[in-house]
């Protein structure tokens, strides 16, 4: 049985296209320092540091923990770097949590980041090796055919993705840290935006952001003493499956379903829509909301889009299960940090510290991240109470 652990401090940078005022270290440092301040701690209080980011090619710094140790006060401490593709922010939080849940450490700092403005994500993700076909126009080009297959199967109306795009940007407008600030966005604006990778429109896609997110995770004894409410970690799970194999279910991947079942079991959740108060789910392309609603058991297969269209996932429409109140990946996407932002925002909700995007009285929240060809999944459930 894992030891109890809780999030006792959260820090995020403002997300934006280019943070031209800081170095790479400066970016992480900002989030890390805010997390320490939030936890009312100093660097000396931290036992170990766990960092995560997507491929090193984004910034062209190999194994960046080597250079970042000084900025994160790690010297003389253990430092670990996680890399599990797009799910890395979530995986990093889970690995950080395991440092405490295993009873090995009392209090650790975890930071995930991406400074995408240092290069071009399309290039970093698509640079071709010899002999390989080179038609993969970034992540959108990869996921668009899977979305098309979902649309075919579910017979969902064409504007579900448009609705999600609007909803998450309206959520993002409540969150001052969100990269995209579009309080006046309309369905028409999204529909008329440029079709990048049919069926994915420009405004149905995530932006490319600079940013970092950090958390302090503490054991039960220290979390009990924290001056601000902790977010208790009630369940942690990760699952992986290969990118391609014969008969692989790509629309509704088994790794996602299994991961959700695992984390729900730990948290005592039997009906996620009813038992959870909100969820922060990795939705980089708008159609992934209905797809993940089904994958994560919030709706039966083929019916996720109905929740979206009914407004069940919308804070503004008073939905019963708001998704991505922070604005989600559709509003901010520093790739390597995006998963951790989901985990941290879930924690903010149950700490009652989510400001204008707070779900009133939230007690139990899901944080979710996925990566690779929708094959790596990381999830946690955090609660205002220990059990």
């Amino acid at each position, binding site marked *: 049985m894992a030891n109890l652990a809780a999030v006792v401090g959260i820090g995020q940078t403002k997300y934006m296209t280019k943070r*031209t*005022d800081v170095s790479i270290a400066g970016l992480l440092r900002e989030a890390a320092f805010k997390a320490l301040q939030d936890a009312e701690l100093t660097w000396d209080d931290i036992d170990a540091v766990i960092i995560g980011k997507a491929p090193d090619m984004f910034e*062209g710094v190999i194994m960046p923990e080597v250079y970042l140790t000084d900025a994160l006060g790690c010297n003389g401490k253990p430092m670990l770097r996680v890399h599990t593709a797009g799910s890395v922010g979530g995986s990093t939080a889970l690995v950080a949590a395991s440092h405490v849940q295993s009873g090995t450490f009392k209090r650790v700092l975890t930071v995930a980041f991406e400074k995408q403005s240092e290069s*071009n994500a*399309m*290039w970093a993700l*698509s*640079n*071709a*090796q*010899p*002999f390989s*076909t*080179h*038609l*993969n*126009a970034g992540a*959108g*080009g990869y996921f*668009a*055919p*899977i979305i*098309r*297959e979902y649309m*075919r*199967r579910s017979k969902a109306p064409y504007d579900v993705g448009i609705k999600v795009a609007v909803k998450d940007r309206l959520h993002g407008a409540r969150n001052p840290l969100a990269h995209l600030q579009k309080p006046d966005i309309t369905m028409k604006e999204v529909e008329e935006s*440029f*079709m*990048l*990778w*049919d*069926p*994915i429109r420009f405004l149905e896609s995530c932006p490319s952001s600079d940013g970092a997110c950090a958390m302090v995770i503490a054991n039960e004894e220290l979390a009990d003493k924290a001056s601000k409410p902790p977010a208790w970690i009630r369940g942690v799970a990760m699952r992986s499956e*290969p*990118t*391609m*194999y*014969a*008969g*692989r279910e790509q629309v509704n991947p088994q790794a996602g379903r299994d991961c959700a079942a695992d984390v729900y079991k730990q948290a005592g959740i039997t009906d996620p829509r009813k038992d959870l108060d909100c969820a922060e789910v990795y939705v980089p392309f708008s159609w992934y909301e209905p797809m993940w609603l089904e994958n994560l058991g919030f709706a039966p297969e083929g019916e996720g889009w109905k929740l979206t269209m009914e407004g069940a996932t919308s804070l503004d429409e008073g939905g019963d299960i708001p998704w991505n109140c922070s604005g989600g990946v559709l509003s901010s996407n520093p790739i390597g940090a995006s998963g951790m932002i989901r985990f941290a925002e879930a924690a903010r909700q149950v700490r009652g510290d989510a400001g204008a995007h707070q779900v009133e009285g939230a007690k139990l929240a899901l944080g979710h991240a996925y990566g690779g060809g929708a094959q790596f999944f990381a999830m946690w459930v955090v609660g205002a109470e220990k059990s």
Partner: protein
Amino acid sequence: MSDEQDVITGINAPVYLKYNFTAGAAPSRFLTQLKKGVLMGQRCPKCSAVYVPARGSCALCGVATEEDVQLSDKATVESFTIVSIPIPGNPIEPPFVVANLVLDGSNISLIHLLSECENSEVRIGQRVQGVWKPESEWDYSMNNIRYFKPIDEPDVPAEKIGKLPVTGWEG
């Protein structure tokens, strides 16, 4: 220039590294045949699924694919996207159709261009065939097939996509 403009806030850091890439054993087998105009898949000894291009293992079973299996250049559209932005480092002019295609006789999709068609008429289950470059231009490359184009065969129902024999689709 004022002092303000003289303040450095950014640098350009060229990071260029040279590599000598060697294709793996399984990809080399595929590419060697491809140079001869043959689409060769590899069958998993455990589950019998046929992979193309084989990457070295049946990812489902985690074992090496050993048996070579000759495939057709006819395929079925599993899904697709119409790309309206250029691919970095690729001269193709957008918009173009990139499709996930399953070759007859294989059980996994590969990605290739679809052309000689109205983009708006491309659909899941559509039958297509490879349009090859002249033999003199063949190399160790999937670009030996310039693109796939629709052929006059009935669409394949969704549940049969990825399960057709090398002999093709009778409708």
